[in-house]
């Protein structure tokens, strides 16, 4: 177990290093951030001074090591644009994204798994066909378009829900939250549903595929031959067997939702990290980009680690392999 964790942490470090090099090189190749930041009319001396101030006149390899050295000391640098420590900038936006992503995953899971189970359990039923048709729409219709449609219907036409923004937040353990108040929910529900739609389609299809496979297995037949009720057959035997692919996809989707909720955040004007990274890319705010992407890598590694640990709980055969 300890060996497994150490191996994982080392892997994560390698990924972070590789990632930082790629981002550094990539941003360097795109252009000089000073050109974007500075007024084109300013003179060469001011330009040189700024370049020198940000250390951009030094060789790339040196810039990289300075950056990495600072990072190891917990200093991710300062945003070129906001003149704020990057870490503060990111964590001021992180709770909003986290809340949105978790709500979206909750919606996708609570709807997707039961619907998928039903569609796999009764594949011929009309309701199952409707569910499957919906799931195709879920991951083939573009997110921004659905977002606009949701705003049109629920905010503009019906006027039930606000069209965007985060609304009032209450502070819980120092973190601003929307979902603690009913009004907060009225703001989060549309973007969360919009974000959930793709994952919902995916989870429905995944659950259905697993269910229809497990339903035809010998142990389900044996469970029925023992007189187990259909509820028990599905709830006990099927659910546990299909959970591994579901947990895998759940983890990956949670990670990508946290990192790349950009489209939904833009459509609903949600003040999350997605908007921050898009803004940083436009102005080549390198410290923010690098730090953000390293945070994303860290999140993915963390989620994958949790997923791997959950596997062992779900399937004893995997546990044996890990132990040996």
């Amino acid at each position, binding site marked *: 177990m300890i060996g497994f964790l150490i191996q994982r942490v080392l892997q994560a470090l390698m990924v972070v290093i590789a990632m930082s090099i790629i981002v550094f090189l990539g941003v360097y190749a795109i252009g000089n951030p000073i050109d974007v930041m500075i007024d084109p009319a300013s003179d060469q001396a001011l330009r040189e001074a700024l370049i020198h101030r940000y250390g951009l006149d030094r060789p790339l390899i040196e810039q990289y090591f300075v950056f990495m050295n600072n990072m190891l000391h917990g200093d991710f640098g300062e945003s070129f644009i906001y003149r704020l420590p990057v870490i503060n900038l990111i964590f001021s936006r992180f709770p909003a994204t986290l809340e949105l992503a978790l709500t979206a995953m909750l919606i996708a899971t609570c709807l997707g798994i039961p619907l998928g189970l039903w569609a796999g359990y009764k594949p*011929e039923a009309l309701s199952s066909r409707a569910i499957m048709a919906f799931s195709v729409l879920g991951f083939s219709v573009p997110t921004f378009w659905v977002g606009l449609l949701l705003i049109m219907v629920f905010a503009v036409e019906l006027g039930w829900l606000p069209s965007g923004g985060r609304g009032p937040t209450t502070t819980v353990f120092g973190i601003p939250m929307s979902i603690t108040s009913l009004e907060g929910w009225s703001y989060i529900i549309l973007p969360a549903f919009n974000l959930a739609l793709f994952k919902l389609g995916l989870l429905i299809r995944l659950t259905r595929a697993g269910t229809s496979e497990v339903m035809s*297995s*010998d*142990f389900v*037949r*044996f*469970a*029925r*031959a*023992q*007189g*187990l*009720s259909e509820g*028990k057959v599905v709830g*006990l*035997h099927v659910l*546990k*067997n299909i959970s591994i692919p579901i947990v895998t996809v759940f983890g990956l989707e949670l990670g990508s939702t946290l990192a790349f909720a950009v489209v939904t955040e833009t459509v609903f004007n949600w003040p999350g990290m997605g908007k921050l990274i898009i803004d940083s890319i436009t102005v080549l705010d390198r410290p923010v980009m690098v730090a953000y992407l390293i945070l994303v890598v860290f999140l993915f590694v963390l989620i994958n680690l949790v997923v791997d640990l959950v596997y062992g709980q*779900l*399937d*004893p*055969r995997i546990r*044996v392999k890990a132990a040996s």
Partner: protein
Amino acid sequence: MSDAVLKVRDLRTQFHTKAGALKAVDGVSFEVARGRILGLVGESGSGKSVTGYSILGLIEAPGEIAGGEVLLDGVDVTRLKGEALRRVRGAKIAMVFQDPMMTLNPVLKIGTQMIAAVRAHDKVSRKVAWERSRAALAKVGIPSPEERLDAYPHQLSGGMRQRVAIAIALLHSPAVIIADEPTTALDVSIQGQILAEVRRLADDTGTAFVWVTHDLAVVSSLADDICVMYAGKVVETGAAAEVIASPRHPYTAGLLASVPAEHEPGERLPQVPGSTPSLANLPPGCAFAPRCFKAGPACTTTPPVQHFEGGRTALCHYPIESDSCPPPSSTSAAYQNAS
């Protein structure tokens, strides 16, 4: 056999395919009495497993039971649905499947699966259910059952898993257990132990067994009665010892002739020529006629059920007569000549 607990009468099970309805089970009838073991024998595709599934109502679309009845203590199981059928399964008729690697859920502990099986019919606490599971494992000869309850199926050998499956089948002391080739996937010594265990259980508890198998050696050492199936039909019935000593139906004779133990080592084994016909494309009359060494002109018409002494029957125009009963070697010679 008026005290039969299970009476199967003219059971018909069909599978609807593009090629039309396939009659996997076509008018099968047999009876099993308390504490008796019936060997349901046949080759792959003869419909013996489907018969077993039909008895428990485990046939799924595109299959359906097209007719006949399965009387369990006078109640027709084929007419039961939903909750009523669930109450019978596992409690009055239980089933053990062929492959012990597949019949236990790999991700649930043995204990979890057994407790669920107990509580499917008896509303008892988990503790009581656990205790009953432990007792059931002990009954089928599993050492240290407490530890086994806490194990996952992959931690047990194939023989142990099949014993667990049998223990699960025994949990509610059912009147009948359908065993679908439960020892086929096991090695011979384990098979022998399990057969002895089953014989003892049938004698002690009065549970009737329907032992579905293709293995005549198993049947001869285990079963009281035999029912030989071919292409969805019962072709011969009778007491096991008598059928094996003097088969009436040429097909049974052919099966017996190809048992390796009856022959000199190194000698070429006689085979029944040809292979089991496709259910979609059965010959008219007797389905076995094209492979039969005794086939005659009448065989293109539906064969009659012929009765013999000792309650034996054979579905044949030209059954093998008892006084002219050929010993296994001459039967094999007949088959070798025919092939």
